[in-house]
């Protein structure tokens, strides 16, 4: 069996000095190329789990491993978010002051690409989704 791409081990997250427990010891393993849907009632901790798996937040205890490297210690969270994970928000969160094209390029700024590389990558990305740009 191949190693999981993303793994959660005894993942716990609590708020308000431990009074509210959003996650109580989640164990999860996601293989490369697989699709996984997480469903549950409102307030059951879906968003919290996604935030932890996406490196947007840190767990109160437990581990999130990406390719067997622990997030936050072996992999820096900023690097993980900019190079290894894509997060599509429910509310999209586009930057209103930027054009649609510039919004596509914003994540590339995090990895310090040159302007030419960014434009090339953005065109390729738009073409992949049949989005014609000038």
């Amino acid at each position, binding site marked *: 069996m191949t190693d999981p791409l993303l793994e959660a081990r005894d993942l716990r997250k609590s708020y308000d000095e431990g009074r509210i427990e959003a996650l109580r010891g989640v164990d999860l393993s996601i293989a490369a190329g697989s699709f996984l849907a997480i469903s549950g009632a409102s307030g059951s901790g879906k968003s919290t789990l996604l935030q932890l798996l996406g490196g947007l937040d840190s767990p109160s205890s437990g581990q999130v491993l990406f390719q067997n490297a622990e997030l936050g210690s072996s992999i820096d969270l900023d*690097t993980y978010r900019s190079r290894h994970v894509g997060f599509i*928000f429910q509310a999209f*969160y586009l*930057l209103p002051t930027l054009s649609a094209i510039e919004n596509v390029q914003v994540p590339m*700024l*995090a990895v310090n690409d040159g302007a030419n590389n960014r434009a090339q990558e953005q065109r390729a990305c738009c073409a992949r989704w049949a989005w014609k740009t000038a």
Partner: protein
Amino acid sequence: MLGDLLAGNLGKKADDTLEIQGSAFLVTGIYHGGSALEAGAVIMPLGELQQIASLQGKVTAFHVRLRPAPTGELPEHYMERAQAQIEAALPGLRAVPAAQRASNNQLVVLAHAAAWGTSSIALLIGILGIANTMAMSVLERTREIGILRALGWKRWRVLLLIQLEAAVLGFAGGILGIVIGLGFLRSLALLPQTSSIASPSFSPLLLAEALGIAVLAGLAAGAIPAWRGARLLPVEALRHD
């Protein structure tokens, strides 16, 4: 004789009478003074001045004009030699170069101190203004910062973004301040009351210094908002309304 500035302020002209310390004096003429100090002065016989000032037989200062320095001698050395000769010939007197005397003048020192004080207050107000603008900008754009952090922007990049904005704000403020300041200076140079003390000329170095201070002020003002913005956790910033 009255300096033109003083005569204008007092409304006096030649052949008028001027009362000083209870004594009436005839205004024999009006002269044009190059500086505000000269244009606002009275020139009168020494004996009469000593009498009304109760300083009979005394003077407070002599103005000595030296001949040009002999060829082969440095002006500074010539000045020092002349000072030593005067002090040796007239024990008890102190000979001081005019430039040094002017810079030690209490009025000049006071004017410099007042200028520095005013500039410092203006700088402080400017820093507080930019700090307030940047703090509001960071607060209003908390979610935007959260998006950038969620996309992997490192803290230092967010810090740089905010500091760059603050520096641009400081630079723009500096340019605006220089333009307004030069406008005022030119207006003062045109007014007869202030034309002798305000010069419309300025050195490029002074402009560069002013712009440098404006940018530094912007950076100083943006430091705390930038630090606060960079410290935001992505998940907390995204929750911000």
